[in-house]
Every structure is written in structure tokens, then in C-alpha cells.
């Protein structure tokens, strides 16, 4: 038999080793060599505090009693861990950006930095964790008892004093490494390193015992299956409601347990570590539970009836005289228990000091945050005392519960207690509409129902609740029986409690949130938490205030230490472009300062302290509106930018078009100039030639002289006409023409035009057919100009109509607003491709000098008609050439 003193010696040696590990880790971290201390592996191993003494000893006992049900405790966290992307990643991001120190801090911070919620969650955590700590003390004590020389001296070994010494030792360790300093990030390198080492010890121990049992005792995997089939465990029948409930409960507790939150979120230094832990931690859990069933079945088969199955991990190796293995196993169990207690005490003490002690101290001390004195010492002292109190509570619970037989039952009770935070936690990170009132209601309802249906009954019939209460309900109200609430009878008490507490908790939370209205700060925090990926920078929770930076520096020095505070102030001052220690007190600066402070004392306390100094100028509805306005302005601005760039695009397009038009105009102008020169040059050439002949020809016959001077005269006339036309066109195009508008009738104008034509045309050349009627249509127009158009059109027909018996038909179409005059001849018309050209300057379809025009006639007509408010167009498809002159009718009103 292993000597008890040797065991105590090894145990003490192990503790010293842990101290050294933690100490070395702290030293390295201080020297800035924390990189490898913060690897994904250490992070994953630190998560293993989920597997406590309850796992190490209790799982085998659980398996021996309830078959495979113990697996649900590990399947739930596996599901949560595998689903890291959805929930844990968000929690970690929030924890890192908001400097969250504990789960109570998260809930309090999210719901408007509510002190009340912080207290509620803290109380819940303390109540839920105390039995758990008791459980660990019990497991260590029982393990010691196994090795104690009980047979020699039954009274020689005092379980209670062992538990006390263990509790004291753990308290000392936690105080030393958990409250060395007030870290701004609330990270404890030494503690994390120590529990990572312990994680390795416990898995090695359990796997070693498992391997020994499977290969050393049973003889191999095949045989062990046979042993399983033969053992009482195979009689186990799956209970669906317990299977589902426990899996869910374990998953929920994994998220909500204060110690799990501590290692998962608070101690996390890099989000990528989660990615590794997402598969590595389930692997750890799987290895931990792999050998539980073999150890249980072998224990049941080998050990005498009545042996405590919770201790098979120790007693089976001892029964085979494998003392080294038993020692390893003992250290594994010791590690499981101690690491859990250390982290739990750490997490709880942070919560207690930040959410209960500090607020009380703040409100008790007059002027609280403004008085001098180092707050850090008070914070640290309150934490040290809290650690002592938490462990004392655990010890007292252990003493007065008398060390309940089944460890697992206690664990599950604690699980459900902390799981009451789940609705408020999920609401905090996924539902912006969740409010403080809802969270407080849900937590209270859940806490009360949990206490009533599970916690109090756990003390047994006649413990806290009387037998009458169990049987008939309080005051004889059967509907309120603690294990058959509202008449829900005949189901497992645990399932019953999970169902009612979480269902009513969620219901109260949702209804409370729906009917209440959140404060501005709550809404701000809600938006920040739920949309944490979008705004990793927290929204501003402070308005403008007129506090002196010096006061803030004084306070910050007392909380985060002089050096850190001064460094922070200098950095902010530099960012603001100032020298020295005192930056301007902007809302951004207040927000940052508060976040730094909350890393030490929690969000609610930090907020309250800053509030005291700044005179409570916290966020107002106006500030909320301003934040919203800023967002709106951003959107406005970007839409303005968009509009501007659209406008630029439009302008560019217009410029391009204008440029094309200018280029075309330039080409047109060049063409026009060359046309003009050509048109002027032809008559000039002949005039010069004939005038030279006249100059030289002294003896010229008078007939010839007559002939030549006639030619010169004709050419001069043609030049004059051309220049007249050009002048006319230029005047018309420039809009300089003054129209001499008066009342006239269409018939009158036509008559005048035709009379003018007939006066100079050779008779019989063109037959003009004028349709009768409609001639008396009144017009208000420049009759001379209109007549000019008509003359031009008719004379064109005279010149160009190529029919044998040319004939022009003039018809009048009287429409509502306008009147049109069609001139249709019986020639071959104008080819389609030329139809658009004829109104251009110098457009002559055939080079007919004989026609005697410069090709400006129709261009002038078009300009005149445009001035008169009408139009001249070519009408295709009318046998011959057809021109339509359209005019507005005289409007009495317009006239």
C-alpha cells in the first residue's frame, strides 16, 4: 500500500511545481515573451477546466449508475465548440473590443451598464458555483481518503480538515497568481499556464488508467466489448427526454459557466485560437470520455459490491497493485479539481468585486471616485477577500451538505443554475430589442424557479422543504409542488426543472423586452454588441462634458496604475496633436478611458466612476440622434457623391457631343467658304474675261460689245443675287431679321406670289393648277417673307421639273392649329438619298449652272419658315417633287 505520507509529499511537490510553472509564465509574460504562452494549444488546454474533478472521478461513477448518459455532458460542449463560428466567435470579439471582464460584466454592459443586472448574474453565479466548488473539495478529499490508512486507524484521517487545507491552499494559489496585478485585459498568464499543465496531467492520467484497464486487465478492445455486454451497464436504456435535456444543458452551461467564460472569452488573446480549439477541444473531450465506460465496467466487474464507483479511477489500479498508476491518477484528479476551483474563484472574485463590492464602496465613500487613495489596492483587496469568501462558501457548503453521495447530481444542479443566463446572453448578442427590464425579469424568474424546483429539493425531503411541501405543495396548493409544477407530473425532476425554469425565463425575458423601452445607453450598447463585426469600434457613450483632464488622470492613475494611466493620456494627447499629459476631454477620449477602466473594474463600475467625475453627463437621446445623424450624413454624403459622379458623366457626354457638333460645324464652315469662293469666282472669271475683251477691242462691232456687256451685266446680277441671298441667309440665321407681321389671308399671299412668278416666267412653261377653296384662311404673319418662300418653291418647280408638260398642283390642307400648302409637281421627284440634303446651303442636286441659283433658296426658305413658326419639308411619295409649307393659323389671342 502506498504510504499516505508519500502521497502528501508528492502532492505538495506537484503544487510547488505548479507554482513554479505559473511563476515562470508570469515572468516571461512580464518580459514580453508571452507569445508561446498564448498559443492555440495552451488556449485549448485551458478550456479543459470544463472537465473538473466531477469528470475525472464522477464520469466513471455516472457511467456505472446511468450508462451512457454521462456522454451528454461532453456532447453538448462539443456541439457548441464545433459551432464556434456562430456564437463563440461573436462572444470573443465582443469580449475583446469591449474589455469584458466576466459574464456578469457582459450582461451588465450590454444592457446599459446596468449595476442591477451585474449583481443578479453575480449572485446567480455564486449560488451556482458554490456547490461545484464543494464538489471539487469533496472529490479531492475522497481521493485522499482512499489512500489513508483507514483500516489501521478509522479516526486517523479527518476528511473535513483535508478539505479545509485544500481550500486554503487553493485560495493562496489563486490570490497569488490571480490578483498579482490589475491587468487592463484581465488576463492571467500564470494561471492559464498552470491549468494548461494540469490539463495535460489529467488527460494523461485518465488515458493511462484506461489503457491499463483495456489492455492490462481486460486483454484488448475486443474483450472489453464483451465485458461491456456482460456488465450491468448494458442493461441501460436510453431515456430520450434526459438525453436531449442533458445535451442541451451541458451546451448551455459550457457557454454560461463563469469559469468557462473566463477562459473562453476573457483569457482569449487571439480569435484564431478559437478556430484551433473548435476541433482540438472536442478531441480532448472525446479522449477524456473514451475510457470511461471500460473503467466503469471493469470496476463493476472487479471491485467488491458497495465500492464507490466514483473512485474506480483510483481503486481499480490500486486493486491491481499499480501504485504508480494510482498516484498518476490521483494527481490527475487533483489537477482537475484544483484547476477548476482556481479559475472559478478567479472569475467569481472578479464578478463579486466589480459588481458588488466596488459599487457599494463607491456609493458609501463620499465623493467616491474623486477622493484620493489608490483604488487599485481596494480592488485587489476586495478580490482577494472575494476569493477567500468564495472558497469558504464552497467549504461550508461541503460541510453542511454532508458530502452528498452522487457527485454528478450536484454538478447538474449547478449547470442549470448558471444556464439561466443563457436567454439574456443570447439576446445580448443577437437581438437588439432585448432590454434591461427583460433580462432582469428573465433572470429573476429563472433563478427563482431553479431554486424552488431543483436547488432546494436537492437538500432532500425534510432538508429545506418539508415533506408536506413535496407531497401537497406549499400551503396545500398542489399546482405549486416543487417537482410537479403546474401539474406536470411523472417526469424526471431534472428535466422538469430545466423545462420550467428555462421556458419561463425565456418567456419573461422576451415579454419584458417587448413591452419595455430601453434607455439611450442600452440602445447604443445593443447596437454595438449585435453588430460587433460591423462596428468593432464601440459607439460613443459619452456626450460633451466640461471635466478637467487632470481629474480624470488622477482617477485613472488610481485604478490602472500611474504608469499605465500616464502612458494612455500621453498617447491620446499625441493623437490629438497636443503635447504633455492632458488631452482634450472629448467624447472619444472618455469612451476609450472608460473601456480601459472597465478592463480593470468592469463596465458598470467604470461607467459609474466616470459618471461621478463628469457629473453624469452620459449619453442622451440627443447624442443617440447625433450618432444616427452621422450615419445618415455618411449615407447622404455618399449618395451625393454618386449624384455628382452621375452629373460629371452627363457633363462629359454633353461636352463630347458639343465637341462633335463643333467639329462638324467647322467642317461645314470650311465647306461653306470653299463653296462661296467657288460661286463668287465663276461669275467673276467671266466678268473679268469679257471686260478685258471690251478693253482691248477698239474696233469691236457694236453687236459684240452689246453681247459682251450683256453677259457682264447678267453675271453681275447673278453675283448680286448671290450676295443678296447670302446676306438674307446670314440675317435669318443670326435671328437679326425683324418680321413685319400683320393680318393676311393665305389666298392673298399665294396670289401675290403666283403673280410675281408669272410676271417673269415664260408663259406656258409650267402649268400651275391651284385647287380652289380654303383660300380665305386668316394668318398673322409676315406676308412678304411667306410670299418669298412660295415664290422660291414654285420657281424651283419651274427650273427642275423634268416632265414634258410640267405641271404644279397647289393644294391647301386646313388642320386644327396649322395650315399646310402642298406644292406637288409631275416630274421625277427627288431621289430618297438627297431628300435630306436639299435644305442645306449650296445643295444642288445636279450641277446646273443654267438654273442660275446658288443653291441657297431652300435653305433660306427653311430659315424663314422657322422664323414664322412654321416648317417646310419635302413630302416623299407624291409622284413628283412635293414640298409642304406648314404655317400656324392666326390666333386671335396670340395676335
Amino acid at each position, binding site marked *: 500500500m502506498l504510504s499516505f505520507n508519500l502521497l502528501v509529499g508528492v502532492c505538495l511537490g506537484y503544487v510547488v511545481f505548479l507554482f513554479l510553472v505559473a511563476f515562470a509564465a508570469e515572468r516571461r509574460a512580464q518580459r514580453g515573451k508571452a507569445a508561446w504562452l498564448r498559443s492555440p494549444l495552451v488556449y485549448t488546454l485551458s478550456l479543459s477546466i470544463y472537465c473538473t474533478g466531477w469528470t475525472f472521478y464522477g464520469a466513471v461513477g455516472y457511467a456505472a449508475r446511468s450508462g451512457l448518459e454521462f456522454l451528454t455532458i461532453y456532447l453538448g460542449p462539443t456541439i457548441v465548440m464545433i*459551432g464556434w463560428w456562430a456564437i463563440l466567435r461573436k462572444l470573443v470579439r465582443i469580449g475583446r473590443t469591449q474589455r469584458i471582464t466576466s459574464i456578469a460584466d457582459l450582461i451588465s454592459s450590454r444592457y446599459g451598464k446596468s449595476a442591477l443586472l451585474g449583481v443578479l448574474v453575480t449572485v446567480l453565479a455564486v449560488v451556482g458555483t458554490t456547490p461545484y466548488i464543494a464538489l471539487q473539495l469533496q472529490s479531492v478529499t475522497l481521493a485522499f481518503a482512499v489512500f489513508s490508512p483507514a483500516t489501521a486507524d478509522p479516526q486517523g484521517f479527518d476528511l473535513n480538515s483535508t478539505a479545509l487545507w485544500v481550500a486554503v491552499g487553493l485560495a493562496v494559489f489563486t490570490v497569488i497568481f490571480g490578483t498579482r496585478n490589475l491587468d487592463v485585459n484581465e488576463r492571467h498568464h500564470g494561471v492559464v499556464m498552470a491549468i494548461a499543465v494540469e490539463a495535460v496531467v489529467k488527460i494523461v492520467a485518465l488515458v493511462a488508467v484506461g489503457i491499463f484497464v483495456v489492455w492490462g486487465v481486460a486483454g484488448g478492445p475486443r474483450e472489453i466489448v464483451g465485458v461491456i455486454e456482460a456488465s450491468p451497464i448494458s442493461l441501460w436504456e436510453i431515456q430520450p427526454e434526459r438525453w436531449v435535456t442533458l445535451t442541451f444543458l451541458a451546451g448551455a452551461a459550457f457557454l454560461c459557466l463563469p469559469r468557462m467564460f473566463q477562459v473562453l472569452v476573457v483569457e482569449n488573446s487571439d480569435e484564431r485560437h478559437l478556430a484551433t480549439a473548435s476541433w482540438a477541444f472536442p478531441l480532448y473531450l472525446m479522449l477524456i470520455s473514451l475510457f470511461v465506460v471500460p473503467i466503469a465496467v471493469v470496476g463493476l466487474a472487479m471491485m467488491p459490491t458497495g465500492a464507490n464507483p466514483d473512485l474506480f479511477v483510483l481503486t481499480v489500479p490500486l486493486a491491481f497493485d499499480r501504485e504508480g498508476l494510482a498516484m498518476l491518477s490521483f494527481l490527475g484528479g487533483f489537477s482537475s479539481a484544483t484547476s477548476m476551483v482556481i479559475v472559478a474563484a478567479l472569475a467569481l472574485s472578479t464578478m463579486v468585486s466589480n459588481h458588488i463590492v466596488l459599487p457599494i464602496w463607491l456609493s458609501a465613500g463620499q465623493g467616491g471616485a474623486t477622493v484620493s487613495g489608490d483604488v487599485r489596492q481596494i480592488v485587489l483587496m476586495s478580490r482577494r477577500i472575494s476569493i477567500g469568501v468564495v472558497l469558504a462558501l464552497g467549504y461550508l457548503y461541503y460541510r453542511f451538505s454532508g458530502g452528498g453521495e452522487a457527485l454528478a447530481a450536484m454538478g447538474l444542479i449547478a449547470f442549470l443554475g448558471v444556464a439561466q443566463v443563457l436567454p439574456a446572453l443570447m439576446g445580448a448578442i443577437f437581438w437588439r430589442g432585448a432590454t434591461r427590464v427583460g433580462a432582469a425579469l428573465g433572470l429573476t424568474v429563472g433563478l427563482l424557479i431553479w431554486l424552488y424546483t431543483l436547488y432546494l429539493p436537492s437538500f432532500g425531503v425534510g432538508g429545506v422543504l418539508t415533506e408536506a411541501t413535496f407531497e401537497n405543495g406549499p400551503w396545500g396548493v398542489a399546482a405549486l409542488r416543487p417537482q410537479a409544477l403546474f401539474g406536470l407530473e411523472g417526469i424526471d425532476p431534472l428535466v422538469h426543472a430545466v423545462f420550467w425554469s428555462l421556458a419561463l425565463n425565456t418567456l419573461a425575458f422576451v415579454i419584458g423586452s417587448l413591452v419595455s423601452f430601453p434607455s439611450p445607453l442600452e440602445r447604443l450598447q445593443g447596437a454595438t454588441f449585435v453588430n460587433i463585426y460591423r462596428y468593432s469600434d464601440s459607439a460613443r457613450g459619452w456626450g460633451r462634458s466640461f471635466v478637467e483632464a487632470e481629474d480624470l488622470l488622477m482617477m485613472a492613475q488610481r485604478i490602472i496604475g500611474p504608469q499605465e494611466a500616464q502612458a494612455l493620456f500621453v498617447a491620446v494627447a499625441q493623437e490629438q496633436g497636443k503635447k504633455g499629459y492632458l488631452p482634450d476631454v472629448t467624447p472619444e477620449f472618455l469612451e476609450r478611458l472608460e473601456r480601459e477602466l472597465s478592463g480593470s473594474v468592469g463596465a458598470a463600475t467604470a461607467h459609474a466612476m466616470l459618471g461621478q467625475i463628469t457629473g453624469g453627463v452620459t449619453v442622451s437621446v440627443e447624442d443617440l440622434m447625433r450618432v444616427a445623424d452621422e450615419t445618415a450624413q455618411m449615407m447622404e454624403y455618399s449618395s451625393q457623391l454618386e449624384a455628382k459622379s452621375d452629373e460629371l458623366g452627363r457633363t462629359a457626354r454633353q461636352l463630347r457631343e458639343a465637341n462633335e457638333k463643333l467639329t462638324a460645324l467647322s467642317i461645314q464652315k470650311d465647306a461653306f467658304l470653299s463653296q462661296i469662293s467657288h460661286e463668287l469666282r465663276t461669275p467673276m472669271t467671266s466678268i473679268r474675261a469679257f471686260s478685258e475683251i471690251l478693253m482691248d477691242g477698239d474696233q469691236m462691232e457694236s453687236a459684240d460689245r452689246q453681247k459682251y456687256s450683256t453677259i457682264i451685266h447678267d453675271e453681275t446680277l447673278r453675283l448680286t443675287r448671290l450676295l443678296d441671298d447670302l446676306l438674307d441667309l446670314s440675317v435669318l440665321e443670326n435671328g437679326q431679321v425683324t418680321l413685319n407681321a400683320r393680318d393676311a389671308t393665305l389666298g392673298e399671299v399665294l396670289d401675290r406670289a403666283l403673280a410675281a412668278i408669272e410676271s417673269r416666267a415664260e408663259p406656258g412653261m409650267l402649268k400651275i393648277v391651284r385647287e380652289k377653296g380654303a383660300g380665305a384662311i386668316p394668318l398673322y404673319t409676315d406676308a412678304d417673307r411667306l410670299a418669298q418662300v412660295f415664290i422660291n418653291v414654285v420657281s424651283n418647280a419651274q427650273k427642275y421639273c423634268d416632265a414634258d408638260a410640267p405641271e404644279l398642283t397647289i393644294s391647301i390642307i386646313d388642320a386644327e392649329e396649322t395650315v399646310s400648302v402642298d406644292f406637288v409637281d409631275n416630274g421625277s421627284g427627288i431621289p430618297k438619298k438627297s431628300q435630306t440634303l436639299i435644305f442645306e446651303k449650296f445643295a444642288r442636286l445636279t450641277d446646273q449652272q443654267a438654273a442660275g441659283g446658288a443653291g441657297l433658296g431652300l435653305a433660306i426658305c427653311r430659315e424663314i419658315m422657322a422664323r414664322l413658326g412654321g416648317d417646310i419639308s419635302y413630302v416623299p411619295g407624291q409622284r413628283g417633287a412635293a414640298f409642304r409649307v406648314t404655317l400656324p393659323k392666326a390666333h386671335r389671342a396670340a395676335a
Partner: protein
Amino acid sequence: MSDPREPVFLERETYRVRRLMDAARFLPFLATFIFLIPLLFAPVAGTAVTVVYLFAGWVLLIGVAFGISRRLASSVDAGPTEEEGEG
């Protein structure tokens, strides 16, 4: 809650990462499904088979989670890791 200004279609690499994120979100549902199946067969098949099934499913899930998280870790990397090195 997605930004209306996000592009509707993504390039191939980004598309794969998005689907990987979908897979990561879906995985816990698959895990739940696998872990609840014994409710159907455990009463018939017996304890040993159930143990073997559960552990096999467990290992499978760990493998899948390993594959997904290995690739997703790089995209977490791309995300903001603010306040790094301040502590």
C-alpha cells in the same frame, strides 16, 4: 442585415470562403443530428454498439471541424484583430 451596397455576386475565392462559413454554421446542426440518432436505435442495438457509434460520429465531426477551421482561420486573420499587442 447585409449591406445593400455589397456586391450581389462574388469572385470565386470569396465565394468559397462564404460557403465555408455556411458549412461552419451548419456543422452544429449536423452534430446535434448525429448525437440524437441513438435515441432511435439504442434501445434495440445495445450499449456496446451505441458507444462505438457515438465515438465514431464524434471523430467524424472532429475531422470535419478540423478541415473547416483550418481554412476559415485564414479568413479570421483577414478580419480586424484590433488592440493586438496592447496587453
